[in-house]
């Protein structure tokens, strides 16, 4: 168990270093001088030189990289070229908005996904199963931003039930959360069903039935816990993807979260902000996946007792 955690932590540290390196490369291979972009070509060479010095971009690359990692660890990535606000405070503000939205969508996706997947598995081969899986594959194939617009048209414009944009009241969360969560709910439903059907074939399920366990408990107590590992793996990746995917939804509903920040920074070529958003979204993603891997130990005693590591 300890070995498993240690191994996983080492790997995470390595990946984190890799991420900083990748992000650093990302910035430094962009064609065109960011300082020129920033000063919009009006500046004279002397001024450019001065700004470069301020930003530290006149130093050799290895030194710049070390400064970058140092900044990343200290949560200080400089200021935005445009708003002159510290990158970290902008990120934090955006992240809080996005995190709230993603959390609600995630809950929505998990509840709907797992229950529909279970139901389909229980009714395997029956019309309920086929119907749910049709919906799931439809949900997986529709772009989230398109679902968002459709929801806007139906519930915002035609029925006039829910607000079209913003996040200033609780009702505002409904449409964005559904739009963001649908795709994930669909894939969770599909993997839950597959995983459940796999587990249902196992001998210990037959044992449970032979013991006289209620059919509902056979599914909930005996099958679901065993089916959980592939589901949880998927959940981890999805929570991360949801954070990134929220930028599409944020655009539709004019929400200023971290996604909007990422898109704006990229279209404006605002280097520090690009670095910050990409880096920290990846870091959060990695940390979530680490938590997921460690949570396997809670589900699977084989990992807890060191055999499955």
């Amino acid at each position, binding site marked *: 168990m300890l070995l498993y955690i240690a191994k996983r932590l080492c790997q995470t540290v390595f990946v984190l270093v890799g991420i900083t390196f990748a992000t650093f490369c990302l910035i430094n291979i962009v064609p065109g001088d960011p300082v020129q972009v920033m000063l919009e070509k009006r500046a004279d060479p002397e001024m450019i030189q001065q700004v470069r010095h301020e930003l530290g971009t006149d130093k050799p690359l290895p030194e710049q990289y070390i400064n970058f990692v140092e900044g990343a660890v200290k949560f200080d990535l400089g200021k935005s070229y445009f708003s002159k606000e510290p990158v970290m405070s902008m990120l934090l503000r955006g992240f809080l908005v996005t995190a709230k939205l993603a959390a609600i969508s995630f809950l929505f996706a998990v509840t709907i996904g797992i229950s529909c997947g279970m139901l389909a598995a229980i009714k395997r*081969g029956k019309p309920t199963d086929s119907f749910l899986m049709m919906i799931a594959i439809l949900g997986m194939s529709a772009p989230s931003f398109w679902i968002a617009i459709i929801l806007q048209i139906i519930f915002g414009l035609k029925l006039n039930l829910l607000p079209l944009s913003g996040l200033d009241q609780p009702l505002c969360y409904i449409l964005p959360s559904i739009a963001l969560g649908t795709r994930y709910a669909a894939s969770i439903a599909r993997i839950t069903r597959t995983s459940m059907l796999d587990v249902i074939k*196992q*001998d*210990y399920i*037959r*044992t*449970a*039935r*032979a*013991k*006289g*366990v*209620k*059919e509902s408990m056979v599914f909930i107590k*005996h099958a679901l*816990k*065993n089916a959980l590992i592939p589901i949880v793996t998927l959940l981890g990746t999805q929570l991360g993807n949801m954070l990134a995917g929220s930028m599409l939804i944020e655009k539709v509903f004019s929400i200023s979260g971290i996604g909007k920040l990422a898109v704006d920074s990229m279209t404006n070529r605002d280097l520090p902000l690009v670095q910050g958003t990409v880096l920290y979204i990846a870091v959060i993603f990695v940390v979530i996946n680490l938590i997921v891997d460690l949570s396997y130990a809670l*589900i*699977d*005693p*084989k990992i807890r*007792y060191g*055999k499955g590591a």
Partner: protein
Amino acid sequence: MIRDNLLEVNHLKTYFYTDEGVVKSVDDVSFSVQPSRTLGIVGESGCGKSITLLSIMRLIENPPGKIVAGEILYNGENLLKKNKEEMRQIRGNNIAMIFQEPMTSLNPVYTIGEQILESISIHRPELDKGEARERALAMLKMVNIPMPEKRFNEYPHQLSGGMRQRVMIAIALSCEPDLLLCDEPTTALDVTVQAQILELINDLKKKARAAIIMVTHDLGVISEVADDVMVMYAGKVVEFATVDQIFAQPMHPYTCGLINCIPSLDKEVERLSTIPGMVPSFNEMPKGCAFAPRCSRATQRCKENMPELIDIGERKVRCFLYEGKDTE
């Protein structure tokens, strides 16, 4: 001698409906079991032995499987007429089952203790937690598991195959069933462990006065535990007799073949005899006797007509060779 039947199966037919056709896994099978007796069901793989047991438990997957006809009388009540809830109350309580694969038959994410307790709490809800735990520990002791308190909190993967099968037996016996169905309980185990498990099952029969149905392809197992023997071939009963009769004087050519396959230490033989060929698959089932293609004594008639199961005293056999001897 007439005894009260604990379980009486009459004309049971369990079919599987597949894309390729209907598989008659259990085809018109009848037998009965009495308390404190063990019925052994023998046959090669794919003869419908396990499906017979699962049919009694009503655990046939539907679709594709279905019990299409017959009755299963348990204490005179037809199990096929019970609804799901009634059946659930019977399973694990009155009728319990032990499976072939101890390695995979226990749920890997729950402790041994939890799995025994579950069965007790379902069928004996009147027991409080302490009593239930006491009983579970007693069960573990009864099946000779060393250090039951320690094992109680362990997970299946921490136990050996033999230990797991003991746990399975403990679960099966935890509610004192009067009918125990064993589906090749020793096949996956080492020879020495096999002997221990069989001894345990024999002991339990004496102590608990339960009836046992033991499904196996191993005649050695049958000779150790069974009182009566039923031989199945391709979904049908081909011979029924007491264990002594079967070994002393097997009648059906298939039974003879099975017995000749057992290696013997007494006789010096150059090579073991085998039965040529395999159990026919459902879509190449011969018109007549299913065993005819492999039978050295088959006649033209065997190939064209299916013989009936005929009574010879207390025995039964499905073969034309014994026709006309049935009335004595």
